[in-house]
């Protein structure tokens, strides 16, 4: 029988980090919470705790896989509607590298893009507005919004790659 004290300690140590990862990969907080809870439930069912010193890596990897499975269950339309990845294995080949890329892209957008490019980028990917909504908000022609965002993506691709 699993040691409840140790299990609780594990939960309190890693829950926050696991939730942060799940919320990054899944854009629904409810789905993210379900994935993290499921990881702990499966630990209980298996009646075994991860080896000392490897618990963090194990739990985060389990969360990542749970999130990927959740994304795989979504249709292509659902995925693109919310901007979920289509090439999970390719993009997440190196998880640490991937997380650094996230940061680099946001840093570049916030610090290097000039307005209105930066505002468009932020409204689209941070606030989740559609481009036609952004065009209305900024009182711009939709074609101009397409052009500015395309330029920003090209800049990022050139500077950071992917």
């Amino acid at each position, binding site marked *: 029988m699993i040691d409840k004290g140790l*299990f609780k300690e594990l939960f309190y140590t890693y829950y926050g980090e696991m939730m942060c990862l799940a919320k*990054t990969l899944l854009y629904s907080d409810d789905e993210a919470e379900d994935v993290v809870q499921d990881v702990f439930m499966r630990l*209980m069912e298996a009646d075994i705790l991860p080896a000392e010193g490897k618990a963090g890596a194990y739990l985060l990897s389990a969360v990542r896989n749970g999130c990927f499975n959740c994304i795989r269950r979504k*249709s292509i339309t659902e995925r693109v509607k919310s901007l979920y*990845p289509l090439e999970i294995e390719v993009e997440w080949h190196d998880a640490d590298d991937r*997380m650094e890329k996230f940061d680099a892209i946001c840093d570049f957008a916030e610090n290097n893009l000039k307005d209105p490019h930066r505002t468009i980028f932020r409204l689209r990917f941070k606030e989740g507005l559609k481009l036609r909504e952004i065009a209305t908000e900024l009182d711009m022609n939709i074609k101009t919004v397409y052009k500015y965002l*395309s330029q920003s993506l090209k800049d990022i691709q050139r500077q950071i790659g992917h």
Partner: protein
Amino acid sequence: METNPNITRLLEMLDNPDAYSGKEILDIISKDDETREAYRIMVAAKQGYRNRESGEQCIDVDKAWERLETHPQLSPEGSSSHPKISHSWLKIAVSIIGVLFISAIAYAACIRLGIVGWQTQKALPQSEQANNKEAIRSRTITRIAPASKQESDTIKSGLMVYDNVPLEKMLSEIADYYGLEVIFENEQTRQLRFHFVWNCKEGIDKVIDNLNHFESLSVTLQDKQLIVE
């Protein structure tokens, strides 16, 4: 700086993906390397902002622990006080009942078809027996309507990698892409699992040829139908 028209098309599509089929969406995203890359960057940008946002949010670990603690395996007496978990168990129970119910119907249908076939064969001459066999065959095969959902594990340069995926799921996606219907002549074949790399830029004949390399599989194309024997 010139704008790649394929990226403009991608941006248009992302504003209203419901107006496109799964095939059209995949075609737009994998039109060229730059467009594919643009989609990846957009995904990463969204995930990046989500990561920053979730890092700043306060998480109530006590509440989460309470939720988990009521799981029957950790605290058997607490199981009934946890609505979410109770709901999960209820869903599992309903699923099991559903599977049993469907199995019962399928079993009853098999028995019925068996009786019909036996009676007819005894009563009819041989030429009509053949026609009747064909009629029974057409009733027992299962048709899959073109899938509304396209789920794939990996898409890269038009490649989709199915890793240990049931044939039923894999073929429904492939058939949907080519506007075909799948017909399984053998129920057991549906659940066979394969590792298969599908290049959606290849023609259906080539894809069928590749599928037929599996020893346990025989796929043919007849009148817009993929027949799986």
